[in-house]
């Protein structure tokens, strides 16, 4: 335990690696078992195979997975308590009643309030495995700042993952990719939340996935009987938990990206769990590919930060982008270097002149000295320890890129199309992956990377969230599948969080993330309980009156609905109230963006409407399908106990004293400790302006309650009292209704714009290869063959022909010459005479020639 004394953050590393160990164990054992299946007929193989669980799907793997995530949960909660002990919550006086944290009912059942010795302020990190550790007393920084300076309270450590370059880090800035962790208040709370909900869902799944423990399972949708695969479910779950926890503790963008992809792969495996169904595998593909579209943006952001700053580490990037309140000597910064704001300058050559609307953004050296801060600065792009710059638009683009990744992961507009289809997976998957954790990762990153976003970027973020929350809520009004309602609800609530963060309501957005995780997981598990009890019936039109048959489920689901509606004193109230109030403040200070308040307000009403519509359709009224009703039963204890626990948390998790004060949430005050300085720096003016105009807290709260009440009223009127007929209401607005029923035609649009053209281009490329390249090669080949034949013809006719002609003519000559040998004596005599005469003539001629000389 000495390791944990020196490096308490290692607790989190161990807690993250335990599910990975479980995954590896399950994978290996599963592989061995599959290999052994062939040998189960023979004697010794049969006994060994039985040891490994035999042909029946085993349960041991599931228990191992659950135990491992339970262990991580214990470690996570322990870590949270230790962390809060070391860096206690410091209340900031905002005009509200402050209170010590010791009075609070802590939000964990296992909380150990044992005395934990406060550590001395160690200076240097102990050498060892290359880990460093910062410990700062939180109070030291608190003086003199409003809501800032606590972001240094953290446990950190890192190891290099890939180092490329000759130079050791000190001689020249090397480029290093690292894996590291940084535990601050937000990470500690998120970690505890993720592990806790994951443990409960594991336990729920032990019961829900029961039918997979049979040797053969009938799949009614795919009309096939297949082997049960109980442990494979938990295999994917374990890998998913590891990836998600790795994401939560990550201290750099690269590690987040690695986890990003891994959770996407696990989601793929889990959505496509019932892979015999074509719809399930298609949904899994859709999820992964849509996420990859977002990942392209993420990679773009990674590339820009890597090239401009040479690092992926969050803290290093923040420090280089946004100056602190004072420089390394403690002297205040000169004008132009607004603390927490991006420093803009106009760059000419390697000189940068600080200017308010400059076209570039400066990267500040790691150790800021005031004597470096002149109005005109010399840049050195190759040494990241010195000033450098990046065009402002490029910085905005980088932020948009990272945000695009979040859009993909959190199913925001325009990449929301995969989440409703992801409901093909078993309900525990929907509860854990697609409501509480994986989709929350996008919001988490948006919150974490807040200081990297320029104001323009944040505006885009806000509008994205606003559009998403409205569109998704409208679709949720008309769907009939109980899980789809919750899926669209998730998209909508994530939109709320994104909108809040984009408008600077950082704590509100992340508080909603935490409360939403609890009540959405609760709602999904309840729906799972309903589906399980109704024997895999998911259509609400076939349900009704189930509260008599499934009272615990009905009760806990009601708690969940009340929480999401923002009923006072429920956890959702704290977060929703805070969000609406902050948005009202934002819109008051910036009236041009009134839509950013109206949409969420209206949607709050719509949310209540469709949630209670769902509850009423499922649990009240007369049963619409007697077959379903008669066979419905309450779920076993292994499934209902997590429901009850989650219901308690949905009520209490964000509570604070006094109980009627929406601003008093203890959880919010913990989150406030992690709020980046940039949030306050960039958005303090909003509070100033808004405070002077209206009391946005009370007005916002009242408006939120009004909207919620309206929504619930409509739901009661239409579905409980049945005073208004929903079908008639739909008939009044046929085109709108059709638009909503077809999910705003996004799927059709993407199919026409992207999928079909891609397949067409693919066909062109394939045909180009065959018809253009290969055909020209074949033509060249035939041309060469033709040339060869031509050459062969020349050989045969011309060259050989010449040789033959010569041969023939010689033979002809010979033949004609042989005619001289006629056999006639007269001929020979004539020849002799003629020859003698010729010789004589020749001799006379040559003699006369010689005489003439």
């Amino acid at each position, binding site marked *: 335990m000495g390791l944990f004394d020196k490096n308490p953050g290692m607790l989190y590393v161990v807690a993250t690696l335990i599910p990975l160990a479980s995954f590896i164990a399950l994978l290996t054992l599963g592989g061995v078992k599959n290999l052994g299946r*062939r040998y189960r007929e023979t004697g010794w193989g049969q006994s060994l195979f039985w040891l490994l669980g035999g042909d029946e799907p085993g349960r041991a793997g599931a228990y191992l997975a659950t135990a491992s995530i339970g262990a991580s949960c214990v470690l996570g909660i322990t870590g949270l308590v230790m962390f809060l002990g070391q860096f206690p919550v410091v209340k900031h006086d905002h005009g509200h009643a402050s209170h010590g944290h010791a009075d609070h009912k802590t939000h964990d059942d296992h909380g150990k309030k044992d005395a934990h010795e406060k550590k001395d302020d160690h200076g240097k990190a102990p050498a060892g495995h290359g880990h460093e550790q910062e410990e700062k007393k939180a109070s030291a920084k608190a003086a003199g700042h409003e809501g800032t300076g606590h972001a240094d309270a953290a446990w950190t450590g890192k190891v290099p993952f890939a180092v*490329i370059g000759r130079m050791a880090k000190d001689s020249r800035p090397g480029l290093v990719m690292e894996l590291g962790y940084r535990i601050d208040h937000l990470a500690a709370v998120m970690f505890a939340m993720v592990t806790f909900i994951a443990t409960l869902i594991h336990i729920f799944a032990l019961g829900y996935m029961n039918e997979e423990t049979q040797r053969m399972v009938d799949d009614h949708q795919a009309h096939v009987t297949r082997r049960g695969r109980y442990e494979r479910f938990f295999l994917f779950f374990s890998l998913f938990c590891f990836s998600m926890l790795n994401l939560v503790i990550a201290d750099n963008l690269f590690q987040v990206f690695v986890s990003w992809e891994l959770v996407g792969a696990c989601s793929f495996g889990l959505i496509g769990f019932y892979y*015999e169904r074509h719809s399930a595998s298609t949904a899994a593909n859709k999820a*992964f590919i849509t996420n990859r579209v977002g990942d392209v943006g993420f990679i773009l952001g990674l590339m820009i930060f890597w090239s401009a700053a040479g690092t992926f580490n969050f803290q290093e990037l923040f420090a280089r982008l946004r100056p602190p309140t004072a420089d390394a000597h403690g002297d205040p910064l000169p004008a132009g270097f607004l603390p927490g704001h991006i420093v803009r300058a106009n760059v000419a050559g390697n000189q940068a002149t600080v200017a308010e609307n400059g076209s570039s953004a400066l990267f500040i050296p790691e150790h800021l000295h005031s004597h470096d801060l002149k109005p005109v600065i010399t840049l050195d792009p190759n040494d990241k320890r010195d000033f450098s710059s990046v065009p402002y638009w490029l910085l905005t683009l980088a932020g948009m890129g990272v945000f695009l990744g979040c859009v993909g992961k959190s199913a925001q507009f325009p990449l929301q199309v995969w989440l409703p289809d992801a409901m093909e997976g078993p309900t525990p998957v929907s509860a854990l992956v697609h409501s509480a954790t994986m989709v929350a990762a996008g919001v988490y990153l948006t919150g974490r990377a807040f200081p990297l976003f320029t104001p323009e970027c944040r505006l885009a973020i806000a509008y994205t969230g606003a559009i998403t929350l409205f569109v998704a809520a409208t679709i949720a009004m008309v769907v009939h599948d109980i899980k789809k309602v919750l899926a669209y609800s998730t998209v909508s609530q994530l939109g709320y969080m994104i909108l809040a963060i984009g408008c600077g309501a950082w704590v509100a957005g992340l508080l909603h993330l935490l409360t939403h995780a609890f009540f959405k997981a609760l709602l999904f598990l309840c729906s799972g309980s309903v589906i399980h009890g109704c024997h895999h019936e998911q259509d609400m039109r076939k349900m009704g009156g189930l509260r008599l048959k499934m009272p615990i489920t009905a009760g806990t689901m009601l708690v969940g609905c009340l929480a999401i509606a923002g009923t006072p004193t429920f956890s959702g109230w704290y977060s929703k109230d805070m969000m609406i109030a902050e948005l009202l403040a934002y819109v008051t200070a910036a009236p041009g963006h009134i839509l950013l308040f109206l949409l969420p307000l209206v949607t709050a009403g719509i949310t209540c409407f469709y949630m209670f519509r769902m509850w009423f359709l499922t649990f009240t009224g007369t049963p619409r399908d007697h077959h379903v009703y008669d066979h419905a039963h309450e779920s076993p204890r292994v499934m209902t106990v997590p429901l009850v626990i989650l219901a308690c948390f949905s009520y209490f998790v964000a509570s604070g004293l006094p109980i009627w004060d929406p601003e008093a949430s203890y959880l919010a005050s913990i989150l406030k400790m992690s709020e980046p300085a940039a949030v306050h720096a960039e958005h303090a003016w909003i509070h100033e302006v808004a405070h002077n105009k209206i009391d946005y807290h009370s007005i916002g709260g009242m408006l939120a309650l009004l909207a919620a009440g309206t929504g619930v009223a409509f739901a009661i009127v239409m579905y409980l009292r049945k005073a208004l007929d929903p079908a008639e209401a739909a008939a009044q607005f046929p085109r709108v209704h059709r638009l909503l029923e077809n999910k705003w035609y996004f799927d059709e649009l993407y199919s026409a714009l992207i999928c079909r053209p*891609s397949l067409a281009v*693919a066909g062109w490329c394939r045909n180009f290869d065959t018809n253009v390249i290969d055909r020209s090669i074949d033509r060249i080949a035939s041309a060469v063959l033709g040339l060869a034949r031509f050459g062969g013809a020349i050989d045969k006719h011309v060259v050989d022909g010449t040789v033959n002609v010569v041969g023939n003519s010689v033979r002809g000559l010979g033949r004609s010459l042989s005619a001289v040998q006629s056999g006639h004596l007269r001929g020979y005599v004539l020849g002799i005479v003629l020859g003698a005469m010729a010789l004589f003539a020749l001799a006379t001629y040559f003699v006369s020639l010689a005489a003439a000389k």
Partner: protein
Amino acid sequence: MLETDLWQMTALTFVPALFALILVFVPATAKEALRWVTLLGTAVTLAISLVVFVGYLDVLEGVRSERGVLPWHGKDAHLEARVDYALAGSEVQTGPDGKALPGSLRPQPASDLVARSAWIPRFNIEYFLGIDGISMPLVLLTTLLCFLSMIASWGIEKHVKGYCMLFLLLETGMIGCFLALDFFLFYIFWEVMLLPMYFLIGVWGGPRREYAAIKFFLYTLLGSVFILIALLGFYFTDVRDFVRPEMVKAKAVEIGVRQGLSAGDAEKQWEKFAKDANVHTFDLVTLGKAGRAAMRVLNGETDKVIAEAPSTDKAGMKERLKQPFFTSFFQVAMFLLLFIGFAIKVPVFPFHTWLPDAHVEAPTPISMLLAGVLLKLGGYGILRIAYPICPWAAYTLAWPLALFGVINIVYGAFAAMAQTDFKKLVAYSSVSHMGYVILGIAVWSARPQYWEWGMNGAMFQMIAHGVTSAGMFFLVGVIYDRAHHRDLNNFRGLMEPMPFYGGLSFLIFFAALGLPGLCGFIGEAFVVLAAWTYSPVLAVITAAAVILTAAYVLWTLQRVYLGTNPAYKDFPDMSVREIIIGVPLLVLAVLLGVFPQYFLLSWMQPSVNGLVESLSKLTGGQ
């Protein structure tokens, strides 16, 4: 003195050929014996390669550390430094007591993994072998894949003797290519690879094997001809300024002796004959030095080049720097010839159409070797030959090169999406993945730190792709053995009868897709990150291509493994032999993905970074 490294590297290259010779004496009917002897041959070669690997790590350990420089990264690590040191050290003079005379260099360590001996002195062709961080991983990959492919070849039934002998000859050719540092020797091994491959595809292949074999052969031979032209072009350049002055002196002395003088007189009057002492060489290291000098000349630094050269004949050097080799036309022409020659092997669009046919028709183990090793030879050739000898052209043509890399990535992905033959789809995915290699090599930007990432990413991608594509072709072979077709539209539901195979396939295909934690991610990530500094447009397109890759891989997995199909429910899962092939590839994929630094980057980098630094110095980078 026993030159262990010469013997080690020679053994590494020729042990497979030796076993091929042994096979001559094994009767053709003893199929099992033939296979086992071949397997033993590949296993012995694998063992030797591991011994050489340990020797290479020793070399790295012995690198003198410099201030501020990471261990193993000192200048001594670079191949050129080792070669130069080997040449200098071979002239150490020992006194009567056997110790080195003061002032002469310290004796050459026996195992610096660089070895040369004269072969054809008339043409200055040497038997020159050497290993550095670029060739070592490729050699290990080759020996491992040959071993696994031999296990996969157990199903070959006809003409087993011929198959095994050709297989072993192919292995010799591949390893020889990676080890050769003499261009002529390299070319010989390059050609040695062609013929066995032709027969292996043409005799043991699928229905259209003759067409595929001859297409492969002629295509590659065309490339080889281009390389040959470049080879000759380099040879006919007088490079005496880039070799040790002692060598020039020795040549002058030789000319004097030939002209009738005695040895002693010739030595005293060697300067008289120095004018004619032309040095022509195939030595890649020397040619590299000449190439870098050419780039400096073309950048206008001729005087600096002359001032820094070790030769004493400065006036003559000035004349010699006007040779065609040092002109821009020659540099570009030679680079293009070399690049096209190697690009045909990589393969780069539009010279890639031999690949789908060759892969589809070749038997499974040959496809594994083709994709796993032969494609890497193209990349290796570009890195070892084209870039060091013609850097000016490489720098000038960097953007078109990168563009071709990106075209490969995108075009390969699109073409893969449209395929209905499983093997052809995997072939096109190979085309796509090799595009990352070309892109990573080409991004010669003004910031050499980022080019280092690109180069290392390209090298890593070569190894990772070797592992994953060999795995993918093997997996296709497994199902082809059972179903006897490769039509993607007629598979379905293979996960149910063959869960182990299905799980292995998913992991290998996800490695090809570039999932973090598996080997395919590292190379792609490094290359993409490096490309941004060079050209943002190309980088964005490359990043967007991950969507396409995910699309075709997942769609294929869905079509083949998911769903239901009662026709295949009796298929047996993987046999022991198949598991022995598949699991090591999977283990390697995971290890390289999770611990890239430890398993590959740490010992590969010193050489790759050395190459990058030697080249980027020429453009003003540090």
